[in-house]
C-alpha cells in the first residue's frame, strides 16, 4: 500500500494509504505540498487510510492552507470511517470539503 498521485480532468487525485502517523507524516506532507504547488485543484482520497493521527491531520491542514493562499481547492474524497472519526474529533469535518467520491467532488466544482 503506497500513496499515489494521478491527474484526472485537470485535477490531481492524491490517494493516501495505510497508517499516517508521526513516522509517515513527513512523506505525506511532502507529497501534498508538492501536489498543491502544481496549481491544480487537489482531491485527497482517504479511502485506504486505516489510521491517521494529529501529525497526519497537521499535514493536511498545512496543505489546505497552502492551497487557499494559491487560490486553488483542496478537498477530501472517499474518507474511510477511521479517518472521518479523527476529522470529526478535531472539528475539521466542516473546515475541509468532504465528498463521497471523485465524481461528486468534480460535480461540486472541485
Amino acid at each position: 500500500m503506497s500513496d499515489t498521485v494521478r491527474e484526472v480532468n485537470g485535477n490531481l487525485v492524491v490517494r493516501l494509504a495505510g497508517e499516517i502517523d508521526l513516522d509517515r507524516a513527513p512523506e505525506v506532507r511532502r507529497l501534498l505540498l508538492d501536489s498543491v504547488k502544481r496549481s491544480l485543484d487537489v482531491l485527497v482520497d482517504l479511502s485506504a487510510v486505516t489510521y491517521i493521527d494529529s501529525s497526519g491531520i497537521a499535514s493536511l491542514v498545512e496543505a489546505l492552507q497552502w492551497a487557499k493562499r494559491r487560490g486553488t481547492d483542496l478537498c477530501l474524497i472517499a474518507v474511510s470511517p477511521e479517518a472521518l472519526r479523527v476529522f470529526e474529533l478535531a472539528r475539521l469535518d466542516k473546515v475541509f470539503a468532504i465528498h463521497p467520491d471523485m465524481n461528486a467532488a468534480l460535480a461540486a466544482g472541485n
Partner: protein
Amino acid sequence: MSAAALTLPDAEYLVELRFPAQASRMVLVRDVVRSAARLCGFDETATHDIVLAVGEACQNVILHAYEGRGDGPILLDILESPDRMILRVTDFGPAVAPAVLQPRDLGELRPGGLGTYFIQNVMDTTDFGRSPGGVGNVLQMSKKKDPST
C-alpha cells in the same frame, strides 16, 4: 491530577510494554493496544479512539519528553478493571508541568496541538504527574466499558 490518582488502581495487568521512543515503533504499539481494547470488549469506534489516545501520548513523549532523540524508553502499562480499561504511559524525561498539557482552542486553523485535545476528548479520565519513583512523567488514562456489552 493528584498523585493518588496515579497509584496502582484496583485492576489487573493485561500487559506491560517497554519500547524505544521512536516513531517507527508505533505501528506495533498501536497493534497491541488495538488487541487489548478488543479483548476488553470495546466496539470498533471506542477501540480506534483508545488506540489514537495512546498513539498521541507516545508521540508527545517522542517529540517533547525526549525531543526526538529516540534513545529513551517508553513504558506502556495496560490494565483492566471490571468497569474500565486503564493505560499508563511513562517516560524518563525531564519534569513537565501539567499546565503545559492543556489542549488548544480548536477555533484557530493551524497544524499541530491536537494531540492533547484528542486524548482528553476520547478518554474518560486523564491524569498527568511524576512517576511514583520520581524519575519521569506518567500519563494515566482510562475509558469506561460500554455497560451494554
